[in-house]
């Protein structure tokens, strides 16, 4: 009877030559790093393992080796198809790029009857007609809009308060729909409005042309009115009345709201979320003040630092998680966006989370 060979003979060689694929890394704590790659794959590694891996010293029987290969951090003689797979994932992740941008913001006026100190545009007082978009500019902007190769075009009207120039909005909507008979794109419209000027006539036009409403609701009455001053100190009342009216004419799903957290908001995140629940919204987007426009002039964006913002955000997110655990379905949209970006192959394309270093910064066209 012949002798069996020693088991070592049948084992693959322990050191394999492998090639690194593009990757990024950052420390998590004293002993661990997280590595990520082009396709959004990630892996948590011990510092020593990462060092071995990058020096090409990682043994192919190391438990991390197969994970690194499966998630496209290395290729070896058994995975020559990896570049093609990684390219496919990359292409899927950024498929929206081939369509350029579909979102076109029309700033139809810089006038506003509110005087919110955190406003992210360079708001002007209401009577300065020279701050309205002209018809000539609007038509030129539509030329640009319809040059987009995207089959989905969304035109969002912003301000100032865009309803102060509603005549132009009507003109743009009708002109866009007429031009679209030739282009046959999925055309959608949104008006970002504080709702103070909304009325039945405007809403009927919105209903007839499938225009959605996006408004601002900063929280309970006292906070909202403090954040969003207007003559009469009744922004909250106007907003709530407007939401009800808009829902009645357009339908519940055609009206959404956004909040902005000022310093006064930081101690009342639960009250803000409760207000959204009371107004029967299905979620909230907890947003800090953006350092643009009027917020720069008033320095309101510097009223709190990242640490205080994160304390506010974490408390709010914990509260929302708890609400869901107790049976109330409610979403925090920022967390949802981040989790989608981190955990799926689909990039949500949220501009504020798109790094220039990703080579894909693609903001909406703002006209």
């Amino acid at each position, binding site marked *: 009877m012949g002798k069996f060979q020693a088991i070592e003979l049948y084992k693959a060689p322990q050191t394999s030559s492998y*090639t*690194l*694929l*593009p*990757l*990024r*890394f*950052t*420390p998590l704590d004293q002993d661990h790093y997280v590595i990520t790659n*082009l396709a959004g794959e990630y892996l948590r590694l011990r510092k020593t393992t990462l060092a071995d891996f*990058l020096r090409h010293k990682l043994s192919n029987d190391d438990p991390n080796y197969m994970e690194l290969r499966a998630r496209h951090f290395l290729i070896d003689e058994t995975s020559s198809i990896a*570049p*093609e797979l*990684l*390219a*496919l994932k*990359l*292409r899927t992740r*950024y498929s929206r*790029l*081939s369509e350029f941008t579909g979102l076109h913001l029309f700033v139809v006026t810089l006038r506003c009857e509110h005087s919110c100190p955190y406003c992210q545009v360079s708001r002007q007082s209401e009577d300065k007609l020279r701050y309205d978009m002209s018809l000539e500019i609007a038509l030129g902007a539509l030329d640009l809009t319809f040059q987009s190769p995207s089959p989905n075009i969304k035109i969002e009207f912003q301000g100032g308060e865009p309803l102060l120039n509603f005549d132009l909005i009507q003109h743009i909507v009708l002109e866009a729909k007429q031009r679209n008979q030739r282009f046959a794109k999925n055309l959608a419209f949104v008006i970002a409005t504080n709702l103070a000027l909304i009325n039945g006539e405007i809403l009927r036009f919105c209903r007839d042309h499938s225009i959605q409403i996006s408004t601002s609701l900063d929280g309970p009455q006292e906070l909202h009115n403090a954040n969003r001053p207007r003559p009469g100190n009744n922004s909250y009342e106007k907003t709530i009345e407007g939401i009800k009216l808009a829902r009645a004419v357009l339908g519940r799903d055609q009206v959404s709201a956004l909040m902005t957290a000022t310093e006064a908001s930081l101690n009342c995140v639960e009250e803000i979320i409760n207000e959204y629940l009371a107004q029967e919204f299905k979620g909230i987007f907890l947003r800090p003040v953006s350092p643009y426009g009027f917020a720069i002039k008033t320095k309101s964006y510097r009223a709190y630092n990242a640490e205080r913002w994160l304390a506010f955000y974490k408390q709010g997110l914990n509260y929302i998680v708890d609400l869901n655990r107790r049976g109330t379905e409610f979403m925090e949209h920022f967390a949802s966006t981040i989790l989608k970006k981190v955990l799926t192959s689909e990039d949500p394309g949220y501009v504020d989370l798109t790094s220039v270093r990703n*080579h894909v910064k693609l903001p909406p066209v703002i006209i």
Partner: protein
Amino acid sequence: MSNTGLESRHTILRFDKFVFSLPAVKKAAYKFLNAFTADINLDQDEIICTLTFTPPLNEELTSRLIEDFKKEVLDQDLREQIRSETEPIRKLIFALAFSKTGIARDGQVPSD
């Protein structure tokens, strides 16, 4: 790398320029802009960083920032090496991913 104390707000760090790249030191310094500014100079063999810390300061914080900065220089240097080693395959992957999308036509690819 070595460091020399100047006065409490300033520290000089020296990096062997045959071991560390200048871009790695600059990128690491950029990451710590909120804690200190760095004047970076070269001499024959060394990259010399004079760090000026932003007050308020204490010795423990300063020591920790210096240690973190040295670790970051190492990390940035490693990133340079990875970038260099993986650049050809990175270009290949991007070419495979986007060559058929019509995003870039011939002669219209911007140089990065």
